[in-house]
């Protein structure tokens, strides 16, 4: 089937497209999923795409990205070749790799891997058919389609993506690496949907990469719902390395049950326009969430991190640290919303956003928003924006370190506060390496995927050795 064409991406065109393809879009739906789809469509009809008049979008302009012409394949194309994706791996890290090409789950021969211990990993569409009792209670349950136009659109249209299920008590030794590669002969619009479920006391590491394969423009609208069950632990990574013509709107809902623990790391290395919506809800007491972000932008790139933490239950701890380095004409937004509900006694919430602006033309808009309905809370927020410290530069150079390397050292040190939070050593080394390359302007979007960039066959030369000895 030839892909649909959007010229440009507009509400009207998408509504028409939905009407024309209603039956094929919901062909595999259960009644509940179909109802969700219809409801989301109505919502999208009301909301449309966000514009700069909306508070949360005031400093992020997507009109240019929407304005291009895109192919919009409603089914995976036949020629999708997964070999490109499956070569990716992080050395010394035991991972199960899931490949997505243009948002579609690709390994058609084995759409669902069922591991011995009850873990299920694979295509969401397939999981809906085979395990409706696992999927249905969660799919669409956490997404806010009432006020988030992108989420509504995704819910109306998306038919596949990745499904991960970790049963109660199972602690996955293997990390799951979800690699979404974008490659298409024309501009492409992508909507995929992921669902990750951790049962009680389960444990999982997920590394979710978004990569471009070439320089063709793309627009991705990705929605991911994640349930972290009672006492479960999720270590979550989002690695974004798209080309300079690509836009990504990625919305993730984390639903944390009692005593659940979340570590989330957003590492945004490249892309024309990146918007990460992160929603964390403490649905039970004694949960904890650490959310870290690092963004390194230059050129005319734009990054927007919107983080909303909903302390709906007492005795939970949330901690946000987002740091960014913006060079040239890059622009950034940080919106942090902490909501402490009436019954959320003894909440401990902190939020920090720090930015380094390397030029006069780089800009950041950082806005904390604390909404607190309980007296017994500890909340803090801070935001700083500055240049590289002149006295530190002088100190380093006075010891004989050249200006470029002194800048590198300071920038890397700045970024390292976030990178050092990566608990898995092989992954941390790999990310450190990528951050160094990014700061030196040497990071490429890759032939295969971002984690494959510096294989031992292509050792990187550094002007200075930043490694710790």
């Amino acid at each position, binding site marked *: 089937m030839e892909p649909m064409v959007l010229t440009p991406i507009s509400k009207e065109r998408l509504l028409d497209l939905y009407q024309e393809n209603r039956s094929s879009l919901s062909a595999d739906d259960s009644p509940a999923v179909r109802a969700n789809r219809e409801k989301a469509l109505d919502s999208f009809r009301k909301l449309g795409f966000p514009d700069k008049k909306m508070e949360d979008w005031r400093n992020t302009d997507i009109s240019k990205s929407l304005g291009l012409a895109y192919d919009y394949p409603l089914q995976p194309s036949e020629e999708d070749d997964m070999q490109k994706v499956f070569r990716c791996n992080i050395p010394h890290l035991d991972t199960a790799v899931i490949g997505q090409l243009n948002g579609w789950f690709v390994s058609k021969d084995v759409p669902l891997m069922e591991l011995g211990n009850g873990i299920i990993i694979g295509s969401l569409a397939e999981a809906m058919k085979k395990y409706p009792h696992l999927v249905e209670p969660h799919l669409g349950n956490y997404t806010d389609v009432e006020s988030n136009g992108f989420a509504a659109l995704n819910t109306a249209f998306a038919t596949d993506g990745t499904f991960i299920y970790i049963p109660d008590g199972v602690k996955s030794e293997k990390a799951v690496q979800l690699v979404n590669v974008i490659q298409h002969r024309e501009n492409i619009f992508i909507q995929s949907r992921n669902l990750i479920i951790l049962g009680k006391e389960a444990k999982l590491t997920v590394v979710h990469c978004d990569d471009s394969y070439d320089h063709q423009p793309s627009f991705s609208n990705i929605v991911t719902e994640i349930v972290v069950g009672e006492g479960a632990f999720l270590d979550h990574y989002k690695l974004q390395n798209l080309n300079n013509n690509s836009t990504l709107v990625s919305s993730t809902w984390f639903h944390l049950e009692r005593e659940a623990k979340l570590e989330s790391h957003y590492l945004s290395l490249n892309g024309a326009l990146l918007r990460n919506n992160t929603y964390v809800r403490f649905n039970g007491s004694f949960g904890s969430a650490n959310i870290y972000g690092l963004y390194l932008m230059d050129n005319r790139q734009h990054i927007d991190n919107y983080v909303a933490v909903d302390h709906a239950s007492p005795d939970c701890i949330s901690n946000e640290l987002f740091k960014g380095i913006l060079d040239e004409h890059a622009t950034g937004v940080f919106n942090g919303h902490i909501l402490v509900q009436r019954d959320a006694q003894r909440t401990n919430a902190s939020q920090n956003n720090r930015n380094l602006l390397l030029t006069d033309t780089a800009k950041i808009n950082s806005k904390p928003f604390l909404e607190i309905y309980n007296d017994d809370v500890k909340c803090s927020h801070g935001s700083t924006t500055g240049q590289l410290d002149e006295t530190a530069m002088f100190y*380093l150079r006075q010891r*004989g370190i050249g200006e470029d390397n*002194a800048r590198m050292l300071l920038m*890397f040190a700045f970024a390292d506060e976030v990178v050092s939070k990566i608990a898995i050593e092989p992954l941390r080394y790999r990310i450190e390496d990528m951050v160094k390359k990014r700061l030196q302007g040497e990071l490429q979007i890759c032939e295969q995927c971002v984690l494959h960039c510096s294989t031992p066959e292509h050792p990187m030369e550094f002007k200075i050795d930043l490694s*710790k000895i």
Partner: protein
Amino acid sequence: MLLKITNLHASIKGKEILKGINLVVNKGEVHAIMGPNGTGKSTLASVIAGRDVFDVTEGEVLYNAKNLLTLSVEERAREGIFLGFQYPVEIPGVSITNFMRTAVNEIRKYRGLDPMGAGEFLKMMEEKKKLVEITSNLTNRSVNEGFSGGEKKRNEIFQMAMLEPTLAILDETDSGLDIDALRVVANGVNKLRTSENGFVVITHYQRLLDYIIPDFVHVLFEGRIVKSGGKELAMELEEKGYDWIKQQL
């Protein structure tokens, strides 16, 4: 002649701080610079090191007969100039080991030498730590981050020992040191003293000069060196303060 400063004028944001400094330091000499607060001692040190927030408006600085003023901060450092900071800078996220290894190897590169391997480098670190009696694991920590005042100063001398400068300017390295630390720092300096290098020691206290015996003592006042003498000048200042010098002017 190691350093020759002639009629040096420097200003910051249009305000003149140095108003005609003359100073000659020969190899093997130790010069002490004293003077009231805010008279330009640190400014002089920064200008010699090449800090570009200061504008040199007049005068000349020769170092090993080369014009120092055209060199960048790092070139001056690689030529052998070291500044022990009055307020050492905290640099979170950069370990001292990494910092020193980068510095040592950049200086070696400038001098046409191969980079020092990790093993050899760590051995040198251990030796120099002993020299300044650093026993704790300071070197694994971020540069100066969370260090006490005394630890910072000791760390400056450690760095000096690592880089083996030809001209070391120590800006109030003695301030904030307890008596034992003062002795350690002074011993470190004395062990590094040779007939080939020179020291400029900025201090407010004659006490340091009991340990590091200066060849000359200068009084800097309102941007000029207004009096020079031998080590007995320091004693006299300790006793009488600066008023009698101001009155002579």
